[in-house]
């Protein structure tokens, strides 16, 4: 017996410490996705604005200044002022905070609720699966924005309700994605292995399978963050959810829209650009993540 023990050589595989060349290889790998890098940089810039912006601006976002209404951009007011004389730069900066918070809360709420529900119905199946998937089908029949509009008008105009409404509208995406993953994962052998060592079924579903089912949902989460910004701004533009005088991009574009014909372009351009850039960046990151993950699988 001891002779067998001695005779079996244990084969050394290098430990998982990342060496220098491996690190350089990783960097080189990511440079193959320039748009992904660009998206990440833009989002980092927005985060910097969220953190340091308010302490760098000198004006208040909501207090009117009757002395300088609809003022052209100048050295005191780099982005100009609106019809109440409020500094547009300050308002864009404060709005970044609100809109990014909405985006991240919507994404994480719909991600966590949707994935959990998808995990449960995907693993257990049965009548609960049938009922929930029919509801999801019905929700998919409406565009998410229309759904969010309906929910906001039912709940009332507060930031909290906007978040609930948009998160509800996007939850079906996560339910469907996670359910699909769980359907394939539950037939994998490590699911059987988990059962056979004595795991109760909730542990198999939540601890063994769910972490392996989340990859596509993480990509979706980034995309949803982008869409949530568009939706929140869109709702505000239509006068739903977030209302003036709150500094929010959609609210500001809505105010500026009345000025398009009269020529005060700075009122709508800067908040509009902020929306476009943010939504664009989140989409680039989401697409990039998907490409990277498929590449890594290969």
């Amino acid at each position, binding site marked *: 017996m001891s*002779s*067998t023990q001695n*005779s*079996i*050589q244990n*084969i050394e595989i290098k430990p998982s410490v990342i060496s220098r*060349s491996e690190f350089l*290889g990783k960097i*080189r*790998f990511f440079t193959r996705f320039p748009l992904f890098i660009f998206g990440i940089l833009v989002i980092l810039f927005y985060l910097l604005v969220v953190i340091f912006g308010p302490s760098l601006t000198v004006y208040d976002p909501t207090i009117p200044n009757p002395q300088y209404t609809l003022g052209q951009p100048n050295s005191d007011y780099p982005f100009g002022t609106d019809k109440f004389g409020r500094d547009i730069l300050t308002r864009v900066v404060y709005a970044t905070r609100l809109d990014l918070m909405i985006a991240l809360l919507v994404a994480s709420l719909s991600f966590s609720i949707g994935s959990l529900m998808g995990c449960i119905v995907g693993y257990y199946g049965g009548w609960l699966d049938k009922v929930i998937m029919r509801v999801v089908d019905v929700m998919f029949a409406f565009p998410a924005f229309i759904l969010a509009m309906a929910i906001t008008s039912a709940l009332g105009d507060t930031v909290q309700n906007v978040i609930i409404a948009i998160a509800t509208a996007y939850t079906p995406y996560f339910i469907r994605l996670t359910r699909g993953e769980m359907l394939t994962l539950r037939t994998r052998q490590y699911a059987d292995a988990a059962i056979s060592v004595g795991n109760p079924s909730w542990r198999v579903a939540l601890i063994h399978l769910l972490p392996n089912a989340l990859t596509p949902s993480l990509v979706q989460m980034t995309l949803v963050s982008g869409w949530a910004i568009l939706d929140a701004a869109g709702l505000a533009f239509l006068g739903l959810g977030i209302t003036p005088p709150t500094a929010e991009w959609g609210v500001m574009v809505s105010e500026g829209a009345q000025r398009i014909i009269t020529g005060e372009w700075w009122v709508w351009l800067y908040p509009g650009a902020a929306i476009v850039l943010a939504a664009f960046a989140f989409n680039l990151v989401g697409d990039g993540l998907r490409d990277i993950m498929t590449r890594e699988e290969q």
Partner: protein
Amino acid sequence: MSAPIIRVEELTVSLNTDDHQRNIIDSISFDMFPKEIMGLVGESGSGKTMTALSIMQLLPKTIKICGGSIWYEDKDLLKMTSREIRTIRGNKIAMIFQNPRMALNPLMRVGDQIARAVCLHCEVSSEKSKSMAVELMSQVGIPDAESRARSYPHQLSGGMAQRVLIAMMLACKPKLLIADEPTTGLDVTIQAQIFKLIKEIQSEIGVAVLLITHDFGVVSEVCDRVGVMYAGQIMEISSVIDVFTNPKHPYTQRLLKSILRVDRKSDLDTNKALSPISAVFDSPGCRFASQCDCVRPECLWERPKIYTDSPGHSVYCFNYSRDNK
């Protein structure tokens, strides 16, 4: 012996990744003669499939041939244009694969697929080719060939699909057939049927067969000669009788000891495990050196020269070449 139909000379094939180059086939040479069945055995990762794909010129994009030559009759396959290759590949050299269903078009009836091969190689009308396809199918032992010709690949079992591929290969009347683990994944009773068929065809149309396998039992029952590969190097080439009765290379000896036989019990406890093959690729000498019991210092940095023990039995090992100088 007559002139070889395939002569592989110092073939080197390398895999290039971002940071480094690895020779997955390291300067191998062997000949194949007409009408013989030669086996190529080795564990996974030993480069047997890559050798076959190099002969077929079907290597994946990341893998490049970087030295040596492959002579078919008196032409070097590696110096041919892709047009010239196509006149040989499929025509003179055919290949059957490990997973036969993957090699068939899933959207086309199998009879039509064989008929298309017949059309390409025999220049007959499409009417005629269809009846020839059915004929070929019954020739490879597919029962009820007429109706089976109308089925799609997914409706066939693995054994039947392999027979269809063999029928397609027959349509081209090749000089050399490369069979890459043709029965992996099939049951033993079906495996026996397929090998019986391959041997029948081989003696009927006189094709040479290069059989890639990891199973010494198959080698013993099917092949005439055998080459033993390890980590991209050929260790020993000999007739089947010699390899079993008088194995020379330490790797061959080790490998033969680790075989389990169905007809008697082996001693399970006397063997040493081998390292995974991926760990030894960067060695400049004999790649088996790090695990060899009779290792010499020169083994670690120099490729052993060929030592011919008896006609047709050659070993790449310093233990023999030095003793006999």
